[in-house]
C-alpha cells in the first residue's frame, strides 16, 4: 500500500515538474517546436534533392532520432540554467523531490516540445508507405528508449556544469555527435572500415537508429543481431539512468 502511495506521489511530482517547466512555457511559446524540427526538415529537402528517394527512409528515421536527441540534450542546458541562473533547482533540492523525479519531469517537459516535429516525420513515414502497426510500435519503443537514455545523460552532464558560459557549449557538440556522426542519417554499410563500424556502436544513437531502419525495411538485420541490439539498448539505458541516480550532483560536494 505504501509502495503504491509512493509511486502515485512520484507520478504527481513528475507531472508537476513537467507542467511548470515544460507544458506552461510551451503553451506560451509553441514556436520552440519549430526550432527542433527545422534542421531535420531542411535535411529531408536537401538529401531528397541531391540523393533522390534512395535515402528517404534513412532521412525520415534520422529526423525522428535527431528531434528526440535535440529535445533530450536541451535538458542538459535547461537543467543547468534552472540551477545556475534561475537558482530554482535549489528550491527542489530543499524539498521532498528527488533527483530522478525532478529530471524525469524536466525530460518529459522538454520532450513535449519535440512531439509536433516527431509527429510530422511519423506522418511522412506513413505517407511514403514505411509505417505499419509493427514498425510503428518498434519505432515508438526505440524512440522512447533513446529519450530515456539521452535525457539521463543530459541531466548527469548538467549537474557537473558550474559556469553560465558552459551552458550552451556542450549541447550542440553532443547533438552533432549523436545525430550526424553515427549511421542515423545513412546506412552503416557506408562505413567501410570494420573497426570504425564496430566502434560506432558506442555512440548511443547507433542502435536505436539501426533498429528503426530495420523496422521500416531500410536495413537488413538478422534475428540474433536484432535481439543483441535490443538487449544492448535496454542495458545501456538502464546503465546511464543508474549512473544518474548514483553520480548526478543533487547535493554539491
Amino acid at each position, binding site marked *: 500500500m505504501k509502495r503504491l502511495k509512493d509511486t502515485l*506521489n512520484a507520478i504527481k511530482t513528475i507531472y508537476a515538474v513537467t507542467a*511548470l517547466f515544460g507544458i506552461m512555457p510551451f503553451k506560451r511559446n509553441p514556436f520552440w517546436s519549430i526550432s527542433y524540427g527545422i534542421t531535420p526538415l531542411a535535411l529531408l529537402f536537401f538529401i531528397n534533392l541531391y540523393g533522390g528517394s534512395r535515402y528517404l527512409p534513412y532521412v525520415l528515421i534520422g529526423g525522428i532520432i535527431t528531434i528526440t536527441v535535440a529535445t533530450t540534450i536541451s535538458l542538459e542546458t535547461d537543467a543547468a540554467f534552472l540551477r545556475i541562473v534561475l537558482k*530554482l533547482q*535549489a*528550491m527542489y533540492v530543499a524539498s521532498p523531490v528527488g533527483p530522478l523525479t525532478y529530471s524525469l519531469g524536466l525530460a518529459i517537459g522538454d520532450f513535449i516540445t519535440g512531439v509536433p516535429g516527431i509527429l510530422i516525420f511519423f506522418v511522412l513515414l506513413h505517407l511514403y508507405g514505411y509505417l505499419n502497426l509493427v514498425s510503428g510500435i518498434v519505432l515508438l519503443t526505440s524512440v522512447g528508449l533513446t529519450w530515456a537514455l539521452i535525457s539521463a545523460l543530459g541531466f548527469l552532464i548538467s549537474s557537473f556544469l558550474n559556469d553560465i558560459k558552459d551552458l550552451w557549449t556542450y549541447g550542440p557538440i553532443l547533438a552533432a555527435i549523436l545525430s550526424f556522426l553515427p549511421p542515423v542519417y545513412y546506412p552503416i554499410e557506408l562505413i567501410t572500415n570494420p573497426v570504425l563500424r564496430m566502434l560506432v556502436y558506442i555512440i548511443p544513437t547507433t542502435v536505436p537508429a539501426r533498429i528503426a531502419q530495420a523496422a521500416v525495411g531500410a536495413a537488413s538485420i538478422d534475428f540474433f543481431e536484432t535481439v543483441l541490439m535490443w538487449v544492448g539498448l535496454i542495458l545501456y539505458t538502464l546503465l546511464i539512468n543508474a549512473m544518474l541516480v548514483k553520480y548526478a550532483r543533487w*547535493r554539491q560536494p
Partner: protein
Amino acid sequence: MNVLEAYKVSKTYDGKNWALLDFTLTIKRGELLSLLGRNGAGKTTFINIATTQLRQTRGTVRVLGYDVIKEAKSVRRLIAIVPQEARPLSLATPWEHVYYYLLARGLSINEARERTARYLREMDLWECRNVISSKLSGGLRQRILVAMAIATEAEMIFLDEPTIGLDPIGKMNVWRYIGQYAKKGCTFVLTTQDMEEAEILSDRVAVMDRGILIAYGDLQSLKSRVKSKIRMEIKGNVSEEKLREYGSVINLTDKLLLYTDEKFADEVAKLAMTNNCQVTISPIRLEDVFISLVGVGPHEEA
C-alpha cells in the same frame, strides 16, 4: 527546543581557503534568526549546508533533529528555501509557480489549490495571479519566490537575501510578509547585508565575517557589546583628531562617525555647530555593532 544545531561546521572549496570555519550555532523553534555579514562572510555557504545542498568539509548540522548528511531526505521534507538571486520562470504565472511547486512537494490537488489561493491573496499576488512573471515588476517577481516558500508551511524556512535588488517599498512588503508568518510560529533563517532588515525582523542576529561567527545574540545583548551608546554623524569641517578625544571615530569620506557617551554628546554637538557642521545624533544601531565587531561597514572591504 533547538530546531537547528550546527557544531564546528567548516567548509573549504579549494582545500586552502575556508569559506566557513568552526561555525557553531543553535536556533530555537519559532525564532527568526538573521545571519549578518558582508559578501564572502559565509552566510550562503552555511545556508546551503543546512538545506542539504552542499556538503560540509567537517562538523555536523542537525535540522529539526535530523543530520543533514545522513538523514537528508528527512530534513528536506520539513524545510523550504528562497535561494539568493533566484528568479521565477519568465513564462509562468504566480499561480503556476506556487501551485505546481506545492504539488511537487506532495500536497494533494485540492490542498495545493486551496493553499495557492490563500497565500497569493495574503501576499497581494492575487490580482496578478495569471500574469506571466516576465510582465511583473522585480518586487512582485521576488514575492512569487517568497510565496512559493511560505506556502509550503514548512517548519523551517531559509531566506537567502530575499530583498536584494528591491526598492524600499518592495523590501518593506517582503518584510511585512515574513514578519507576519514568523508570528505564526514558523522558524526563519534569513541572510542579509541589510542592517535595517536584520534589525526590523530578527529575534536574534549572528554576525559573520570571513567564515567565522563573530557574535551571536539578541539585538540588545549585541548592542551592549559596544561601549559607546551614542552615534553622531558629523558633516563638515571639523578636526578628526579633536573628535577622537570624545570616542572612536570612523572617517566615511563625506562625514565622520563618532561613537561616544551621552555625557559628551552636548559638547560635541556644540563643537560641530561652532564649525558650521551638520550633526545627527541617534542611539547605537545594529550597523554600529557590526562596524565595531568587524572593523568596517557592511558594504566595505577591510
